[in-house]
């Protein structure tokens, strides 16, 4: 049996879900990186970007209990904000002629660009959330949905800054497997630390019983707004990663389909657990990839087009009918050793 009285081990135990998730992702990344399969690596990068999005979704949805349909809008804001700073220095004025001169003539490094993009998304979330976070329940969900539609239709028509219905091409493909992994771990860590913080606790209390939380002195509006802004920040960063993974951006990719896929991942894994968020991304990414390969045909065998989409939809319906708490049952990864070591140690000291 492992003795848990050393400070290091106690630390590991506190951060156990975080450790398991990071190491688990690391193993996947290393295996695929060593295999040298380029197509597999593409799937992996996309999956890692989705880990960032879904972890951010968990940060807000899991802790507040409000299902947000609006976060893909923040992702879009972040994606275009990075493109304004890093995309295609020679053709930028062709795609986005309306940009201010500073942005037209200067190219930022990827890291500050992505941080600024996240910041812009967070500021937009602060302004819009200041209104929408006053709502509760289904009205709040509808509000975030309307918000996503506003962002989408504005960016679609704002063609001097976003190229509108056509696409911006020529972003440097900076998001490699390892860049994706680092950002995924940062996002998971942030979501984990937030949900363990007193703010996360306060927000979860309002999720479980809003009236009681208010009565106990929780500023429900303020806590929701905080989570909304933080998760929008990470969604904005994910947007930047996504743009630099594809090398191009279209407004249409940040609409209902992306909203549905990312929400499905969260629902599948278990809405109220970070482990669930990551597990959902991994499982659904693998399943979609396998089905896509079968659609194009393996040997003589192939399945009809869009089977992957039908399958995802059916799985989500089944999950919501039979197991609303998702694969993980809304629980985090357990500490696999002696159940409660600190308590046991305390008992030993007493006797």
């Amino acid at each position: 049996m492992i003795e848990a009285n050393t400070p290091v081990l106690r630390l590991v135990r506190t951060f156990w879900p975080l450790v398991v998730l990071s190491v688990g992702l690391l193993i996947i990344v290393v295996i695929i990186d060593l295999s040298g399969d380029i197509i597999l690596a593409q799937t992996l990068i996309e999956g890692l970007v989705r880990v960032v999005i879904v972890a951010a979704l968990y940060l807000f949805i899991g802790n507040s209990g409000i299902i947000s349909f609006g976060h893909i809008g923040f992702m879009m804001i972040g994606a275009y904000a990075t493109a304004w700073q890093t995309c295609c220095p020679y053709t930028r004025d062709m795609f986005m002629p309306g940009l201010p001169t500073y942005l037209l003539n200067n190219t930022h490094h990827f890291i500050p660009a992505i941080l600024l993009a996240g910041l812009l998304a967070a500021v937009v979330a602060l302004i819009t959330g200041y209104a929408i976070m006053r709502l509760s329940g289904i009205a709040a969900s509808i509000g975030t949905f309307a918000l996503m539609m506003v962002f989408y239709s504005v960016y679609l028509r704002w063609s001097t800054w976003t190229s509108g219905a056509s696409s911006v091409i020529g972003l440097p493909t900076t998001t490699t497997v390892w860049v994706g992994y680092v950002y995924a771990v940062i996002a998971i860590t942030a979501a984990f630390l937030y949900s363990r913080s007193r703010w996360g606790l306060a927000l979860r209390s309002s999720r479980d019983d809003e009236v009681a939380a208010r009565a106990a002195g929780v500023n429900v509006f303020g806590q929701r707004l905080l989570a909304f802004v933080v998760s929008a920040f990470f969604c904005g960063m994910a947007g930047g990663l996504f743009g630099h993974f594809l090398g191009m951006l279209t407004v249409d990719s940040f609409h209902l389909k992306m909203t549905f896929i990312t929400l499905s991942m969260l629902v599948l894994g278990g809405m109220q657990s970070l482990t669930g968020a990551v597990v959902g991304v991994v499982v659904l990414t693998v399943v979609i990839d396998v089905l896509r390969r079968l659609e194009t045909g393996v040997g003589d065998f192939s399945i009809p087009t869009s089977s992957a989409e039908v399958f995802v939809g059916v799985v989500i319906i089944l999950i919501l009918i039979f197991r609303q708490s998702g694969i993980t049952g809304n629980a985090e990864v357990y500490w696999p050793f002696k159940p409660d070591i600190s308590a046991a140690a305390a008992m030993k000291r007493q006797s």
Partner: protein
Amino acid sequence: MDWPYIFQTAISALSFGSFYALGALGIGLLFSVLRLINFAHGDFITIGGYALIVPSSAVVATLSIGGFHPALLAICIIVLVTVVALLSYFVVFQHVQNSSPATMMIVSFALGYVLQNVIVMIYEGRPKAVNLFPELTGPIQIADGVSVPLLQLVIIAVTWLLLIALVLFFRRTAAGVQMRAAAEDFRMARMLGVRGKRLIALAFILSGSLAGIMSLLFVTQKGVLMYNMGLSIMLFFFIATVIGGMGSLIGAVVGGYAVGIASVVLSAVLPEDVRPFRDACVFLIVIIILLWRPQGLVLTKAARERV
């Protein structure tokens, strides 16, 4: 401005409004008894459209049901869409009816996603031209120099007939009264002997037959089938339902007309530079209305959330 132009705009606004009102009613009916925002409603309309043609990947579609005698055609489509709606209740929504409204919203999203992609699977994703009721699509002369599309008048007339029928149903029949009771307080209505499951099934039948009628009107007007055509109009129905106050049927009709008239008037009135942002304006109005009156413009007694 000359009056024929104003008259034509008014008819156009009314017909858009009528169409949105029908859609909002289809959603409002389900929301009132089940707290379900049915995002698959638009896809029921799409299914009605695709049922007209033979499955194939050709661009110009061959008609199947669409080749029947008009009356038979209408009945077939309406029955088919109603059956699809009813099946969606027994297969899917029945099992999640005790979940939170937001969960049900995701379920309906997923169902719509499945339906759309099943259509892509069978018919392929390209748009298809369909010429349904060509005699309705031409303009009709009403007075000197004033002509309006006949179809717009048909839409308005059909909507008002349906509205009168629905009012009679809700006022005069036992099932209608029970449904109003259930909309006000579902649990209480059940305790007083209303059969909940049967009532919800009835709501799905009404909502489905509205969707069937709408798919006939919509396909006649568009002349083109797209696998995602239902989703785009669904967004407007959804806005109309929210503006009118979810769960209130009068509100749904009012909201539908408000959205239809507003979108026609806004495109006529807005300055040239702002016009592309019309949709954004409409959704902003939705957010503002949500903040101002979270229960919608028309209040129902059941809408107030209790502790």
